[in-house]
């Protein structure tokens, strides 16, 4: 099998815009799932609301497309009620960090055996480009026309602090690394959180001088900095570029987890 066998061919092409990273992230996630040799009949994909959350509808498995922000709460019910099911959650920055922030930290705290893939495009794409909790300071959106004035969430750091067993961050440029990270997440008992920096040419790029999808990808390539390098620079007291995207594995541990199949 390949990741394409995990997609509902009759639902493609999907609704995402040209150049949207969500499709890439869906590919990488399902490629990792494919490597796990999971039975599609025993796999459940859960998502909330937003561009990212449409992903569930394209996966050839049982899928639950829920209400805004609540995907993790629904997934908690599925996984605790039937731990033998494999559960993957697709979510976005608005879905996970704004309206679903409470469920996010509590799912990490419970350390439920879920793999959560967050397509973080720094914006509310579905509703037309409003600022989200991860919109960087100064970035333009329809609700931050003079530049975002609020500090942004560091989702990976948040998941580490809240207790997730596996946390990684990559971008949609790092397809192989992302695939490996998702696989590591699927293999780790407990909550695995993979934040993926995603490009939204239509709503984020257009307002922030990243007009083409290729420009966005180039930015991901040049600005990404491995976590080990970042840590070394910080330890040595050397300057870190303010726009660096720290990528890599943030934590991998085996704290007590819930909902792990016996």
């Amino acid at each position, binding site marked *: 099998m390949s990741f394409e066998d995990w997609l*509902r061919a009759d*639902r493609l092409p999907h609704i995402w815009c040209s150049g949207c990273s969500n499709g890439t992230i869906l590919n990488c996630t399902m490629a990792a799932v494919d490597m796990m040799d999971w039975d*599609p*009949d*025993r796999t*459940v994909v*859960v998502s909330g609301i937003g561009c990212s959350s449409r992903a*569930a*509808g394209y996966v*050839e*498995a*049982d*899928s*639950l*497309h*829920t*209400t805004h922000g*609540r995907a993790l*709460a*629904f*997934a*908690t*019910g*599925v*996984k*605790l*009620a*039937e731990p*033998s*099911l494999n559960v993957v959650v697709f979510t976005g920055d608005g879905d996970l960090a704004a309206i679903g922030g*409470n*469920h996010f930290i*509590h799912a990490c705290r419970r350390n439920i055996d879920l793999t959560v893939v967050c397509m973080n495009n720094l914006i509310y794409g579905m509703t037309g480009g409003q600022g989200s909790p991860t919109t960087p300071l100064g970035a333009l959106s329809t609700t931050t026309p003079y530049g975002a004035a609020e500090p942004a969430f560091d989702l990976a750091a948040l998941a580490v602090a809240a207790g997730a067993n596996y946390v990684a961050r990559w971008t949609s440029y790092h397809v192989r690394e992302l695939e490996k990270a998702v696989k590591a997440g699927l293999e780790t008992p407990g909550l695995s959180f993979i934040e993926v920096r995603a490009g939204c040419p239509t709503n984020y790029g257009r307002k922030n001088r990243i007009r083409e999808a290729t420009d966005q990808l180039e930015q991901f390539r040049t600005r990404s900095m491995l976590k080990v390098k970042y840590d070394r620079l910080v330890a040595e007291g050397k300057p870190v570029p303010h726009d660096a995207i720290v990528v890599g594995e943030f934590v991998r541990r085996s704290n007590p987890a819930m909902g792990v199949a016996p």
Partner: protein
Amino acid sequence: MQGNVASAEGALAAGCRFFGGYPITPSTEVAERMASRMPKAGGVFVQMEDEIASIAAVIGASWTGKKAMTATSGPGFSLMMENLGFAVMTETPLVVVNIQRGGPSTGQPTMSAQGDMLQCRYGSHGDIGIVALAPNSVQEMHDLTVKAFNLAERLRCPAFLMADEHIGHMRERIDLPDTVEVVDRTQLEPGTLPFAAGPGLVPGFPTFGKGHRVHVTGLTHDERGYPATTDPEVHAALVERLVRKVEGARREIADYVVTNPDAEVVFVCYGAPSRAVAQLVADKPDEGIGVLRLRLVWPFPEHALAEFSNATAFIVPEQNLGQIASEVERHTDLPVVPVPKLGGELHTPAELARVYEGVRR
């Protein structure tokens, strides 16, 4: 046994094997009982981070084929509204026990009320179809919880046990039957579409993990379950079916108790106030006071009003400002006299007697 505990026992007897809840007065004893009993029954109890998460987890659990429920009161019930609409849209069987307290807002946490009767019917946005039961004793807390599960499973919709603080915290001796009648949801036949109307407009249930590879979404969906949000006909057909499958079962599932059907003056009541009415009837055995006690409030059994062929007026005592009284008015040309009582105290038989005397003259 306490009413709330009896409800938990009824749920377990009905086959409930998942409880997701959040502490809230005056319903907390349901969760506490479940926390102690559920692991021994082979089920799952989880205390979620809020009521939104509770109902979400209950819906998720229900899709794995488990019977699932939560218990709450006014403020938590308000938080659940969006996901209850999701449960209606996705036809998820579940039970919510609402031990009503004084509202609006935080109101009177430890006092009784019936102020959520319209909220449970109309609270979630869009047109919805739901079932609501109203117990008036500890025995009924048990029996109607079982019934709520059976109706939820049969009609694939949320079923509410709309109790009030009086009944939830009341202690009475009850009979716990060895076995109860249990209805299980009909499973989806292979080869049929997951959201196509089955018998009674209810589709078979495509349990997760059974190979149906079903897509469940709160978006307007076609019979395959795929989103079809811009097709007016698909939306109209779906929502009409969701409402009609419940409303169409109105006569069949109606559950009420008629006393003195020849009476001229008839009390229409449910929940705790019906106990005061019963006392009034017992105090005045020669008057032949008519009583229609609703055990199932939604869908409203309007045909039950016609059982009182000599009726000249209906009196509706409620612990709210006349929520079900207005529903009674919708279905009769006779005078309807609401007897609202707020504040958490029950109507006294003497108060009801005064209203009765006034109406009879």
